[in-house]
Structures are given as C-alpha cells and as structure tokens.
C-alpha cells in the first residue's frame, strides 16, 4: 500500500475564524472554520489540534478528525462530542470568534493501488472522518458502503452526508431506535457474508473508526475474513507533532524492532493497518 500523495503536507498554526458552529445532536457540535491552507492540504483521516480555552484552561489542545474540507471555499468542518472540560469550553465559542488551529496533522488513510470496493465502518464520533474518506473514494470511482453505529438514534450522525455522496448507509444502534439493534460490526459481518463475491486484497479495504471495542471487533472480523483493514485511532495528545511521545499505541513488534513497539498516534497514525494494533 502507498499513500496517495506521500506524507502529510506542511501543517500551519493560526487563529482561524469560526464561520459556523451549531449543535447537531445532543452533546454533538459541528464547527466550520475558515482555514484555506488546511482545506487545501488535508487528506482523509488527518486531524486538527485545537486550543479550546483562551487562557490556560484547559491547558492542552484537543485533536479532532476532519468531517470534510472544501478547498474551493477554504473551509474545514469537524464534529465533536462534549465529553470533558476541553470540549465543554469549545462549545461556548461563537461564530465570528477565532480558534487557535494547528494542522493538518497525522498520517492519512491509505488505499491499495487497485481499490474498487471499500466498506466504511464508523461508530459515534468515529463517523465524521468516514464522510471525508467516502467523498474521496467516490470521486476516484470506488464503490463504497457505509456502516454506522451509535448508542441511540439521535447519535447516528452524518447520514445525510453519505446520502448526498450517494453512499449506501446501513445503521445499527445499541438500543434499536434506528436500524438494526446491536453491534454495527455484527451488521457488517452479515452483509459481507451475504455478498456473492469475495473481494481480493488488491481491490478491497475496510476502513474503521470508532470506540475501541468496536474497532477491535471490526479488526477481528477483517482478520478472520482475511480482508485488508485500516483503523483510525484516538488518543489523548500533547503536542500532536511527534515530540512528546504521549499519544502512543502498542503495535505488534514484527516487523518493527522491539524498541518501536509504541508508536505515536499523532505521527505514525492516527491511521494504522488494523492488524498492527495490540488491542488493550
């Protein structure tokens, strides 16, 4: 596999104007920033590192993966869920204000040179990066299906984005309020089993982003079925530039040397081959 345009292009840091900021579901917000350079350079799977508080609280930035970018209008969008101090403070930012932005960061999704079919599986706030990826793949003629999972109906986000991209969507919710009741990985498993043709390694990839149990289950499914799969991980981050070594994930030591068993989610990731991850 190779990255389409090589490693990430240059990141920038500046105070980006907030063009829109709205609540889209309970605890979920969409923020649109004017960031022309980021919009032009970002690739699917990359993220931005945002300073949520103005004066030291919270101290550290928070990483958010991109929902999509628009190089023509110079805008970038991301969706976040309020889970702690950082996101709570960010939710109070109003349109017209500026937020300190660093990005684009991280290694983007990769795809095999002869990709024809792809499944996107997203859980919760792992759904948005699949929209950016889905658009990219569609624009390159890849057949895409999306599998979305969430705790409940209200948190199944971005469905309209996939519809707009003409990507078929299948849904599972934990409480059964929308789509199939239960795990989205089970749903994917059923659908894959029903398909007449087994995809080849060169022509297919499963892309995964979501909560750890979901990613682990999806990675297992891919392994059992011998399907290439990539996961986009989330981890608490310090610098997000590869310096603090704070955001590591343990990877299988082969073929890498044992001293490289902890890799940085911000730099070697956030996208990894699914089989490389030691799930904890």
């Amino acid at each position, binding site marked *: 596999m190779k990255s389409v345009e090589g490693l990430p292009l240059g990141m920038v840091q500046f105070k980006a104007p907030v063009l829109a900021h709205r609540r889209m579901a309970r605890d979920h917000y969409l923020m649109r920033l004017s960031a022309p350079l980021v919009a032009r350079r970002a690739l699917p799977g990359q993220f931005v590192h945002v300073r949520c508080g103005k004066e030291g609280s919270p101290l550290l930035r928070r990483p958010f993966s991109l929902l999509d970018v628009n190089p023509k209008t110079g805008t970038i969008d991301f969706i976040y869920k309020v889970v702690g101090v950082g996101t709570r403070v960010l939710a109070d930012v109003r349109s017209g204000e500026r937020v300190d932005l660093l990005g684009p960061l991280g290694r983007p999704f990769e795809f095999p040179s002869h990709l024809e079919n792809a499944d996107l599986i997203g859980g919760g706030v792992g759904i948005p990066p699949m929209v950016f990826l889905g658009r990219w793949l569609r624009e390159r003629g890849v057949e895409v299906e999306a599998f979305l999972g969430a705790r409940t109906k209200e948190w199944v986000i971005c469905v309209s984005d996939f519809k707009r991209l003409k990507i078929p969507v299948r849904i599972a919710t934990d409480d059964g309020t929308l789509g199939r009741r239960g795990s989205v990985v089970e749903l994917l498993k059923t659908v894959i089993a029903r398909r007449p043709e087994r995809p080849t390694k060169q022509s297919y990839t499963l892309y995964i982003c979501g909560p750890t149990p979901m990613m682990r289950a999806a990675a297992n499914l891919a392994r059992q079925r011998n399907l290439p799969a990539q996961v986009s991980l989330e981890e608490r981050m310090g610098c997000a530039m590869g310096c603090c070594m704070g955001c590591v994930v343990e990877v299988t030591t082969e073929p890498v040397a044992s*001293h490289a068993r902890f890799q940085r989610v911000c730099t070697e990731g956030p996208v990894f081959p699914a089989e490389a991850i030691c799930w904890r």
Partner: protein
Amino acid sequence: MAVDLSVRLGKLTLQNPVMVASGTFGYGEEYHRLYDVNILGAIVTKSISLKARPGNPAPRIYETPSGMLNSIGLQNVGLEAFLKTKLPFLRRLKGPKVIVNLAGESVTEYVTLTRRLEEYDGIDALELNISCPNCERGGIEFGVDPALTERLVAKVRRVTRRPVIAKLSPNVTNIVAIARAAREGGADILSLINTLLGLAVDSKAWRPRIATVTGGLSGPAIKPVALRMVWQVHRALPKVPLIGIGGIMNAEDVTEFMLCGASAVQVGTANYVNPKAPVEILQGLRRYLTMRSLTSPRSLVGKLETPRHLKGVPQVVSG
C-alpha cells in the same frame, strides 16, 4: 539603546536566554516545520540513552488543573541512531546552542554516552538527566541522593571539556544540598526543575489515569515550586549559573525566573499548548526590557527584592 538578549552561563554563551526543554521538542526538526528554530537560545534534545528505549505503556499523559502528568519512560532512538539521524540537523543550525540531554541507568552508562559524544562536533553542552521520575533505574535515583549526584557528575566531568549541566529533581527535601553536590562534582551549570512526582485518579473506574500509576507533573501548576527552588539555590550558590524550568508560558514568567536567579530558562509544556510559544516569549522579553530601558536580560538576574532580614540575600551576579 538596543536590547542585547545574549546571556552567559559560565563558558556557555547563548544568543538569548530562551531554550526549549528536553523531551518537549524532539530533536528540533518537528518544530522547524512551523518556525525557524534558529531564533532559539538553545535546543535541549530529548534524553538520549545508550540503547533505544521503547518507553512506558499507554496511557502516558493526562491533563490536570493547569498542568499535565506524563510518564513517557524516556522513549528514544538510542545513542547511535541519534548520532546518525538526529544530530546532523542540529549541527546545521546557526543560532541555537545544541545541548544533548543524557539519561543513563548507571554511572558507567553516563560516562560511555559522554565519551562517544566527544567524537562529534556541534554539541555545545551536556545536560545530565538525573531527575526522570518515570524510570525504574537511573534517573531520579541519582538526583535525590547528594553523594550519588556528586559522584556521577564528577565522573562525567572527567571525560569531557564541554560544559556540564545537571538537571535537578524537585522531588527532594533539600534542593540546595543536591545543588551543592552537583557543583562539588564539577557541574558548570544547574537546570531546575524537572517534573514533580504526581498521581491522577479516575474515580469512575477506580484506576490511575496513566499506566505507570505515578507520573511527572509539569506546566503552570508547578511554576511557584520551581521559582522557589531557583531562588533557594541562587541564594545558596550565587555564583552558579542557573537555568530556570517549570511552567513557563510567556515572557513575564521568564522575567520571574530571572529575578529569582536564573540566567536562562527552558520552555517545556508551553510548546504543546502553543507551538510558537518561544517565538512569542522572545518578542515579549524584548518588549519588557525596552519598556524599562534595560539593555540586557542579565540585569534582571537575582534582582528579586526580598526583606532585609533574610540572610543571604542574593548577591549581584554580573552576567
């Protein structure tokens, strides 16, 4: 009068007092993609160990009020890979001094590291990490024991002509005793403080927030402790050049450390919050001095005005 930001720490002259702290700046290249790191006074590398180290399990960091807790475990590429892949970039830099931070598990390892570095040009000083709180062996073991500190520094001192900086741990009862010991061993410069040992708890899960349970606390939360220790050491050893470290976020923080006796500073956690913090700090420092008609940051060093009854009020140390 134009402001001249240069400072002297014994034999080591820096173009300005703003350095970046070990472990927060990699080996310089990463931040060079955002701004010209040639403006810095010095770059202190991430700790180098003899062999590559995998570091500690995740999670490794957690944010706490006005600070962060980390337990990285000195993950680094090891000495030989550093020499081959990291040092060439640092040597090409024109502005900043290059300070290599060393972490050993034994006195012998520190000596071996030092000797090997002697074969290379473009290194201006060594900083001995005798204060990492997150390693089972080495690190803090040395930094909390005056006799060990003195012995280690003396051994390293004997095999290099480069300025030796001892980086002190705050996790001691008497910082002055450790400072004296490092000085007795022959340290040219002292840098302080490393992180404070701390613990953060997830009370929902009844678990520690980071995998190794305890970690090192950094950021604005520790600044008062750092200032106090710099001031104490400066009072006791007024002739020893000090590098102040601990929660420096802006130029005002730098001036506070200098007033307490630091001749230079290291910016650490601030690099994560605002990657261009050192750039803004330098601008701010220049402005601070200009506003007060001062021509050099040296005129701040140790000038904290303290009540007369305090014995050993810092003597004036000329830069």
